[in-house]
């Protein structure tokens, strides 16, 4: 694909140069202009080793990491007898480059290209919040044990507590960063003999390289989190041909997009519970250290194909109809290997299909009234996945670490080990219907009123497998006005009311509706059975339905523009959104959002411009949480 793109670009440039040679042979005046820039940047205060740079102005600025970088740039414009060439370039350092250009041959053939490359510094999670362990000083084998309170006088110096969270950062000094580069180019062909037909072909190649932090749980599963540095080497390759055709009042457009996303970095692996040959938790895990190294933090290779068709019919001067259809299929290509759930293979590629149809009719009913009617249907269909789980049962009272998986379970009384099949039904599968209308009334010169209503129904087809509600009906009412009070003063006001009948909710999401779990119920039954759950003390007590989506929303927006004198322009804006969901158990979920600001531009004298602005943002969520005590 990359070679094809280079050949394609070379061919286009060759065509442009050939065309230019013919055109410039007739030169009789200045047909070129441009600018060349040569300089350097020095960091008076560069980013030091103890500064992450993942926030603020350094986040996307690679120059702050070097004492000296270059500044080489320029642009060139050529124009003569229907041939136009325009290019610009800027090189600061290897991770900060921008190039762009356009070649046009009598506007019949137009080629555009741009390339950019930049650095993004990423966060490093030191995981110091994962220190919820309490060990007595006797447990000297544990890192950072001294940070725990001195509990030597408690419980006779024996183990204190059994629930704990711990972490190990295996790349503590690593600075994580990704370099992103992207080439976009395309050609447009306008054939003079067929003016109603236009063809374009676009290509995009994106590359992400660098390192990021990857975490997994480790020997004690959820109790111990391990972080490593993961190399990133990902490419995205898109091709996108498009054909536009107009016949009389009818305009049509067809396009196809093929995308290949490839991951070239190696998988990270981890041996779970790998410290000892027969460790305490060995036979309480689904897979133990004898399973060997298992991959984690994987990003699958994927392919996406999108087909679009669009039609616009200008019925007459006052009425227009627009409709389009989009079909896309996204395929996970990393699952097609021989079935092995541990490496993420299911013996088949997994597809997500999407069909979208939407249409809009616009009518200018009179000089003062216009009407829109619109509708949309969307279907998402994601593939089911067959999962085969290992079920490992131990007899009551079996000692920890008694049997490993490699030793097998055959002939051992009370032990059993078998596969259990389960079908995973996707939560994506849904049908969504939308229908709406709005009307705009120009009441008088400078005053316009718009009112609209929209209905949407989302139907989740696999709701029963995900413990959520089947469907949500959404009603949206909008009312807006824009008023030009005078030549210098303008106001815009918008109000929107959203009502969701049965908003998306997770049933049995958390504690009891009164907000309590009740008393601690002790260790779960079947301690040595890997299939045991935190039941009945935790899971069975989760009976309250919760959501972080609204049942109803009020939204107000106000904007004003005032231009009182030629030297002064002012703007002010306010947006307030209140959302509430009382269709949950326990305390209501609410959100208050406010953004407001003003700005002004003043030009007190010729050649001096001053602009200043202030913005305030406030966002507040109120929800109910319950915390259960998990034991080991």
């Amino acid at each position, binding site marked *: 694909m990359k070679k094809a793109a280079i050949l394609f670009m070379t061919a286009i440039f060759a065509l442009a140069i050939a065309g230019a040679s013919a055109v410039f042979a007739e030169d009789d005046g200045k047909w070129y202009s441009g*600018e060349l820039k040569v300089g350097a940047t020095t*960091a*008076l205060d560069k980013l030091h080793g103890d500064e992450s740079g993942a926030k603020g*102005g350094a986040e996307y600025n690679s120059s702050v990491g070097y004492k000296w970088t270059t500044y080489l740039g320029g642009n060139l414009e050529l124009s003569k007898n229907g041939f136009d060439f325009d290019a610009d370039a800027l090189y600061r350092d290897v991770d900060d480059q921008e190039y762009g250009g356009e070649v046009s041959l009598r506007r019949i053939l137009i080629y555009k290209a741009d390339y950019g490359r930049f650095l993004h510094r990423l966060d490093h999670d030191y995981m110091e919040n994962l220190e919820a362990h309490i060990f007595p000083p006797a447990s000297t084998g544990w890192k950072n044990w001294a940070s725990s309170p001195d509990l030597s006088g408690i419980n006779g110096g024996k183990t*204190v507590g059994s629930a704990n969270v711990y972490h190990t950062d295996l790349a503590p000094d690593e600075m994580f960063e990704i370099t992103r580069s992207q080439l976009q180019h395309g050609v447009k062909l306008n054939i003079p003999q067929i003016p109603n037909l236009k063809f374009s072909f676009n290509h995009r190649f994106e590359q992400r390289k660098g390192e990021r932090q990857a975490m997994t749980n480790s020997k004690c599963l959820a109790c111990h989190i391990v972080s490593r540095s993961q190399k990133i080497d990902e490419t995205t390759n898109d091709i996108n041909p498009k054909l536009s055709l107009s016949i009389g009042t009818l305009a049509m457009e067809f396009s196809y997009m093929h995308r290949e996303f490839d991951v070239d970095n190696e998988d990270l692996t981890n041996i779970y519970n790998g410290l000892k040959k027969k460790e305490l938790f060995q036979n309480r895990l689904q897979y133990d250290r004898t399973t060997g190294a298992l991959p984690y933090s994987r990003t699958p290779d994927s392919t996406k194909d999108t087909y679009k068709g669009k039609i616009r019919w200008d019925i007459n001067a006052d009425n227009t109809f627009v409709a389009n259809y989009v079909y896309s299929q996204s395929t996970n290509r990393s699952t097609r290997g021989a079935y092995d759930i541990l490496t993420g293979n299911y013996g088949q590629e997994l597809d997500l299909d999407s069909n979208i149809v939407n249409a809009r009719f616009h009518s200018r009913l009179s000089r003062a009234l216009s009407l829109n009617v619109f509708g949309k249907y969307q279907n998402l269909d994601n593939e089911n996945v067959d999962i085969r789980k290992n079920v490992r049962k131990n007899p009551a009272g079996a000692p920890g670490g008694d049997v490993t998986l490699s030793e097998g379970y055959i002939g051992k009384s009370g032990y059993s080990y078998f596969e259990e099949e389960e079908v995973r039904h996707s939560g994506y599968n849904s049908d969504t219907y939308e229908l709406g209308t709005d009307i705009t009334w120009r009441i008088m010169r400078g005053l316009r009123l718009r009112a609209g209503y929209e209905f949407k129904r989302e139907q989740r087809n696999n709701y029963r497998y995900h413990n959520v509600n089947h469907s949500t009906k959404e009603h949206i009412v909008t009312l807006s006005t824009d008023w030009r009070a005078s030549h210098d003063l303008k106001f815009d006001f918008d109000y929107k009311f959203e009502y969701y009948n049965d908003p998306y909710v997770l049933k049995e999401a958390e504690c009891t509706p009164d907000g309590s779990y009740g008393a*601690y119920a002790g260790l779960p039954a079947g301690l040595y059975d890997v299939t045991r759950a935190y039941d009945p003390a935790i899971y069975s007590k989760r009976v309250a339905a919760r959501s972080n989506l609204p049942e109803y929303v009020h939204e107000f927006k106000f904007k004003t523009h005032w231009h009182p004198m030629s030297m002064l322009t002012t703007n002010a804006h306010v947006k307030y959104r209140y959302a509430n969901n009382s269709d949950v158990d326990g305390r209501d979920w609410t959100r208050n959002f406010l953004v407001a600001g003003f700005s002004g531009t003043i030009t007190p004298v010729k050649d001096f*411009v001053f602009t200043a602005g202030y*913005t305030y*943002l406030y*966002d507040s969520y109120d929800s109910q949480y319950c915390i259960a005590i998990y034991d080991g």
Partner: protein
Amino acid sequence: MDYRTEAHTINANASYFILPNWSITTDLAFTLGRGNITDLNFDSMYPTGDAKLDLDVSAVNPNMPHLYDVAYLNNMDKYSDLEYKQIDFNVGTSYRMDNGIGLTLNYSLYYYDDNAPYVYGDQGSTTQLLMGYLSYSF
């Protein structure tokens, strides 16, 4: 539980042509961001009858006599008062001669103050750049 974020942002920029071929520009962006959790109301709940979990640790902290108690999470809001300040400042000047040769100088300051480091450690940084280039137009 209430989770609140706030941000104040001030932007200003100015440009002035001292002479028709000599300009000076400057811009400043300042942001103060805050985030915090309030209104935590976890009722007291602690394990009873367990040899490892139900221990009297009042000798370590009389205000927290149980080893585990959900109500201790009500103090969590003290760790949630996050705040940062960010300043991006640029000032530059450009001079262009009649023969197409020009000179541009630019100074940039990027300042990020992490007032309450937490999960990602102290993310504060201060960097300054001085950039200059000669240009030739034709």
